[in-house]
């Protein structure tokens, strides 16, 4: 009788966060919808109560249905039949369970059949899904495409397509092509306007498309013939019922086997333009990718949780030399570090989800009425944080998921290498996390501006200025010392870069990671102040980890010379 919400206190605590007041106020606008929907909340407390109940329901579906199907889905995988995809039987059961539980369209507005839940809840469901079956998170989590359509689509498009999400339609986003991976500006799929048919027609090939045979797709295509860069790309909505797209093959993958990765051939596939021409990559896909990166963050944290639990379980059950192996220091340290990483990156994930939520909600309000000067400022503030934090979450959570999956097998010893325990599946599933939706290297490129322009440091200043428990003063002092060290590193890099261009790029990952470690240290210390019993140990362990990591980075940065630029060319 597993329930992935009830057995995870950290998830439950997210709804106690002070920013939830603001989030609910923005989502529910004075609770006006209670007049039309019996399931709309009447007050803040009522809303939070509903969130908790529905998360408990989602936790049950994940713990009971998804977890039970995970192994068979991994073994069976989807099938390529004709030019279509057929999900594994377990995947079909998962989709049915989620649909019957009414969880589809979780964050969609009620007028489109959704529940109008905040992003925090959407992220949470994605995390719980991934803990049960990482691959299913891809299939279900791609609903965030609907968010993008809700943000940028026309009223008519929204009315036509958004209700399909709540009715169980699955989504995909077709961006990547054989010669356009990280460099999406090189996308070649051709979109031409057909006077005869009165619509756009898509022609070309897409590759590595997750859930490519989904009911609805957002497709990036080139509308401006002769153009070669991002400014010639537009975004389209493709409805599978209209035909014109064939699945040429399903990739055979190392992990997330249940999630079908497709090669698609477009032949005069009719599609609708979303938003303005030429804004496809520059505006819409950037927004879509940010949402998807947060989704991968959730998937990664869920993977961390799964790896941690498997490792803890095995270490407490496996006896050697007359005692459980968890009692040996070498294993104990690994487990404690795994827990600290999971807790740290989860804190970062939900912090980021709140930032994204507030600025997106304000943007939505801004479409209905003029925002006040204060609101505009608030939106700008959170938008800036969200843009900086999203790649940071993606970077850390996906790397941690891989580290934890590695350690989980290590703790299982020889048994972990066999197909007998879930840790081997988790290990295979984790590997993609630091690659897709932008590799870790690309996340660093996206996050480095937040380091050099001070966004992260300002946020750390704000965090450091908050009240901390008296007993945490020694830890806080150590954190403050790290802060000075990081500041010095950034300044030093800046100075070097002014003399010789290239130092900032060379050390970008070290700088971004140092800032991330520091942030998570403060977040865990803050969490310890309010919930000592849950966070204290992890905060202390993370602090030590961060000190070591930052010291290592500092050694590299502070000793850096011109020679380095050539050495690593």
């Amino acid at each position, binding site marked *: *009788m597993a329930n992935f919400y009830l057995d995870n206190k950290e998830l439950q605590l997210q709804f106690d966060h002070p920013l939830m007041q603001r989030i609910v106020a923005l989502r529910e606008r004075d609770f006006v919808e209670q007049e039309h929907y*019996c*399931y*709309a*909340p*009447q*007050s803040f407390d009522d809303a939070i*109560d*509903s969130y908790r*109940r*529905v998360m408990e*329901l989602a936790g*049950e*579906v994940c713990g009971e249905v998804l977890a039970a199907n995970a192994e068979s889905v991994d073994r069976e995988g989807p099938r390529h039949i004709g030019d279509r995809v057929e999900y594994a039987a377990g995947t079909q059961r998962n989709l049915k*369970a989620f649909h*019957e*539980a*009414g*969880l589809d369209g*979780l964050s969609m507005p009620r007028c489109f059949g959704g*529940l109008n839940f905040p992003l925090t809840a959407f992220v949470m469901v994605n995390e719980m899904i991934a803990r049960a079956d990482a691959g299913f998170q891809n299939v279900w989590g791609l609903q965030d495409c609907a968010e993008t359509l809700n943000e940028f689509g026309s009223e008519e498009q929204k009315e036509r397509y958004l209700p399909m999400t709540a009715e169980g339609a699955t989504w995909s986003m077709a961006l990547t092509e054989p010669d356009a991976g990280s460099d999406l500006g090189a996308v070649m799929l051709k979109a031409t306007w057909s006077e005869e048919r009165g619509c756009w027609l898509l022609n070309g090939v897409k590759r590595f498309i997750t859930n490519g045979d989904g009911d609805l797709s957002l497709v990036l295509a080139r509308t401006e013939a002769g153009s070669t860069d991002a400014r010639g790309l537009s975004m389209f909505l493709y409805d599978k019922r209209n035909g014109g797209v064939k699945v040429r093959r399903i990739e055979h993958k190392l992990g997330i086997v249940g999630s079908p990765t497709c090669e698609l051939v477009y032949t005069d596939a009719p599609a609708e333009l979303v938003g303005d021409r030429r804004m496809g990559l520059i505006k819409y896909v950037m927004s879509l990718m940010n949402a998807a990166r947060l989704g991968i963050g959730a998937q990664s944290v869920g993977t961390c949780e799964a790896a941690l639990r498997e490792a803890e379980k095995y270490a407490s059950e496996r006896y050697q030399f007359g005692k459980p192996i968890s009692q040996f220091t070498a294993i104990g340290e690994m487990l404690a570090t795994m827990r600290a990483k999971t807790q740290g990156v989860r804190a970062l994930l939900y912090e980021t989800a709140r930032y994204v939520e507030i600025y997106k909600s304000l943007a939505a309000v801004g479409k209905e009425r003029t925002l006040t000067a204060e609101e505009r400022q608030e939106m700008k503030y959170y938008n800036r944080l969200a843009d900086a934090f999203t790649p940071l979450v993606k970077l850390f959570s996906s790397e941690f998921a891989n580290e934890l999956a590695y350690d989980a097998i290590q703790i299982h010893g020889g048994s972990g290498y066999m197909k007998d325990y879930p840790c081997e599946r988790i290990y295979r599933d984790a590997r993609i996390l630091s690659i897709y939706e932008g590799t870790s290297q690309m996340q660093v490129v996206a996050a480095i501006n937040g380091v050099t322009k001070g966004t992260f440091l300002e946020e750390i200043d704000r965090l450091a200025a908050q009240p901390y428990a008296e007993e945490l003063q020694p830890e806080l002092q150590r954190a403050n010392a790290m802060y000075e060290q990081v500041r010095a590193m950034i300044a030093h890099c800046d100075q070097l870069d002014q003399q010789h261009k290239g130092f900032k790029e060379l050390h970008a990952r070290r700088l971004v990671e140092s800032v991330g470690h520091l942030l998570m240290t403060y977040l865990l210390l803050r969490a310890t102040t309010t919930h000592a019993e849950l966070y204290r140990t992890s905060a202390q362990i993370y602090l030590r980890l961060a000190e070591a990591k930052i010291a290592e980075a500092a050694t590299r940065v502070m000793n850096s010379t011109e020679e380095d630029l050539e050495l690593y060319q």
Partner: protein
Amino acid sequence: MEQKFQIVVLAKQVPDTRQVGRDAMTAEGTVNRAALPAIFNPEDLHALELALDLKSRIAGAEVRVLTMGPQRAAEIVREAMYRGADGGYLLSGREFAGSDTLATSYALACALRKVGADLVVAGRQAIDGDTAQVGPQVAEKLGWPQVTYAEQVVKVDGDRLQIRRRLAEGVEVVECPLPMVITVNESAPACRPRNAKRLMCYKLARTRSELLEEQSWVVERVEAMPELQIVELAAADIEPDMAQLGLAGSPTKVKRIENVVFQAKEAKRLTASDEELEALIVELMAAHTIG
């Protein structure tokens, strides 16, 4: 108003005997209800699913759940509503305390006559008593035919239902005229999950007694929405012969309760060889323990 087809599901709140710990029994040998979580009797959930499936196949059908128990059993009605039931009744009062299966089925039959039903569906048996008597006894008291061990309604044919029964030796399909009582096996399809929208809407469903202790906004909401009102029935509401209710109406007397203790002599030691394992499988299959 259009005449509705009323399906009433009999459901019981039971202690979760699948989660038995050390303190599951009291020193007196009765079930320690405080130590076990109260749940929807598992086979009654299968009954609810069968009823909800029928609702989608019979025009104008409504599904309501009837439960007898203390006030907290109202949770069973809410739980059923989260999964698709249209509403429900709570039969509650100290007059019902100490009921055995005879007194329980009498009270339920009285209540069913009162609320009206075209079809009654119940789980085969409850996991606390394991008697499988209440459903059949209700049918007898109503004077209705009964189909037990049901797995699926194969066909709805006017005022007759074709039902597949799961028996020890196989399955059989029977046809039976309405009204009738069906008791449902655990081999029937599992109940659909709770639904998020229903959960948020019906979390406020309350009985009259529960409303007395509620905040004013809940009271207002429930009064404004009839679908949130769980009908509470007291003994007087079902016009019974009081002598047949509760302890007075219960001829069953518990003489003695014994704990089952597994003896070490029942244990058998095997080596890990394939031959011995196969022999064990053959033995267990012959004894119908597995297979």
